[in-house]
């Protein structure tokens, strides 16, 4: 009963949001919190259009500054469902909500393959986006979000190969690996310069002269100990597949900024 009521309540809010369409908002970029600069809408919209056309999934960006007591997850899921976003029978797409009231960024995915594809990437994506938001760079965060979506759709990874090479070059890991491998290789060759003794007692043993005159293995005592096996406490992070009020399943996750 309570669920049904809050559902209706939410639908009303969203329809009201629709009525109060702010000038500048485009189909896929709804900036109710007025975070974005004017000239960015067209750029974001054309990017969203190309992703929709080429990859068959619809990216949406939504910003709000009043959550009216609802969680970011509910707002994101419901906004997507009740505004008819999505491609195909499963309504494939992804929505990023910047909730200035809860100071949360939430990513909502729709369509089973989209949900499955993005679920393992949600945390890395949020890690990428959140710094922009913490620094107040909302336009950049949206541009980066669409870049990430395009990369994921095209290659399955968040960043391009070139970006990852740059990351690697500035990371300390290759230096450590290079140092360790260099040391091991040099060490092996250095040690192989040394000569070794190869003659053993067997070389001088006369025929079958070896005779064991005494061989004893006396059992002395036995000792048994036991330890309890610790139980696995499965704690899964927030997010994961859930069903919104409209009946559609969504995936996704969020983080505060």
């Amino acid at each position, binding site marked *: 009963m309570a669920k049904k009521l809050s559902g209706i309540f939410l639908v009303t809010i969203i329809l009201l949001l629709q009525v109060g369409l702010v000038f500048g908002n485009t189909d896929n970029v709804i900036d109710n919190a007025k975070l974005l600069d004017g000239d960015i809408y067209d750029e974001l919209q054309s990017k969203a259009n190309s992703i929709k056309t080429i990859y068959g999934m619809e990216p949406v960006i939504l910003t709000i500054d009043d959550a009216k007591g609802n969680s970011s997850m509910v707002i994101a899921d419901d906004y997507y469902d009740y505004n008819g976003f999505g491609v195909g029978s499963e309504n494939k797409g992804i929505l990023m909500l910047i909730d200035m009231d809860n100071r949360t960024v939430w990513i909502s995915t729709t369509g089973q393959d989209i949900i499955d594809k993005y679920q393992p990437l949600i945390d890395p994506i949020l890690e990428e986006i959140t710094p922009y938001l913490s620094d107040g760079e909302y336009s950049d965060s949206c541009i980066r979000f669409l870049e990430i979506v395009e990369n994921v759709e095209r290659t399955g990874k968040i960043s391009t190969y070139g970006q990852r090479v740059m990351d690697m070059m500035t990371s300390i*890991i*290759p*230096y450590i690996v290079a*140092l360790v491998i260099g040391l091991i290789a*040099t060490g092996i060759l250095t040690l192989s310069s040394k000569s070794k003794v190869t003659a053993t007692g067997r070389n001088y*043993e006369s025929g079958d002269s070896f005779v*064991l005159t005494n061989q004893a293995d006396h059992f002395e005592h036995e000792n048994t100990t036991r330890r309890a*096996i610790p139980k696995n406490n499965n704690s899964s992070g927030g997010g994961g597949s859930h069903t919104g009020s409209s009946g559609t399943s969504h995936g996704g996750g969020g983080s505060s900024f």
Partner: protein
Amino acid sequence: MSAIKEYDCTNCGGPLRFNPEETNWICDYCFSKFNKEEIDKIYGETKEEGLDEIHEDLDSYHCESCGAELIAEETTAATFCLYCKSPTIIKQRFKGEFQPQYVIPFKITKEQSKEMYKKWIGKKFFAPIEFKKDDEIDKVTGMYAPFWLFDCNAHGATSGRGTKVSTWRSGDYEYTKTKTYRVEREGNIRYEKIPVDGSKKLDDNYMTMIEPYDYNEIEEFSMHYLTGFLAEKYDVNSIECEKIMEQRAKDFVSNRLRSTISGYSSYISTSNNANLNDIKTNYSLMPLYMLVNKFKDKDYVFFINGQTGKIVGDAPIDHKRQVIFFGAVAAVAWIITVLGGALFG
């Protein structure tokens, strides 16, 4: 009777050398070949005239081929004339207690030893480039080294504690059972011809590493084998060498007994002893090639077993090459990590 012995070709009078490749004697000038029977006939067997007499040791000798006077170091038993290069054997130095019972003749020629060494040092990546040059490798010298060979009966006993550990799961618990055993082993073993080098000049560690020699090819001693090579007589007596041998034999016995202990997850030895008896001693000359190289004012000695070809020695490490190698490997590893990591990251 001459104090020295030189082997001359009966066809042309040139010097004869022992030829390891064919186990015969070959003339330097006319390349005539003689086998052991022929040499024995011409020059007599090992135990010939006056070998058992003790003469006063001489400091200098006259070369029979060119008349030059050679001064020989106290331990040198066979050498070459400095001037005419004729091989010379100083019979004096094989008399009495210095008469060897055995010898293992050279199997590898000087040329072959140079080839083997060249390959070996070539593989030592960090060795300085000078060591790999032909004129350095040319300095290889073949010599017979004095060794004491010991036969003995050894008796050893060892005991210790062994554990067998097994684990299993039942319910919510993991069980570990440890069974402890007291282990005893005792045994007898006979060793033959354990070698200990009898020369102060030759480093004991290298001489141990150059083993083993193949005793299937050991011969009764004959001076004939020495012509064309250097030879040294011993200057460390058998009593001292026996002490070294004892330690080795005892280690051999311990290891042999230890190898019969099996089936334990862990084993700790608590007592170990061995003793030897019925020790027989023989004096033998063993073939080896020696090469001395200098690098940064230090002498580096290399030995090649003249029968088996095993090469021992510590090649010096040229640090520049080491650093360059390290840098190259590290650079390649860095590139692969960056490109590969980005591929899979």
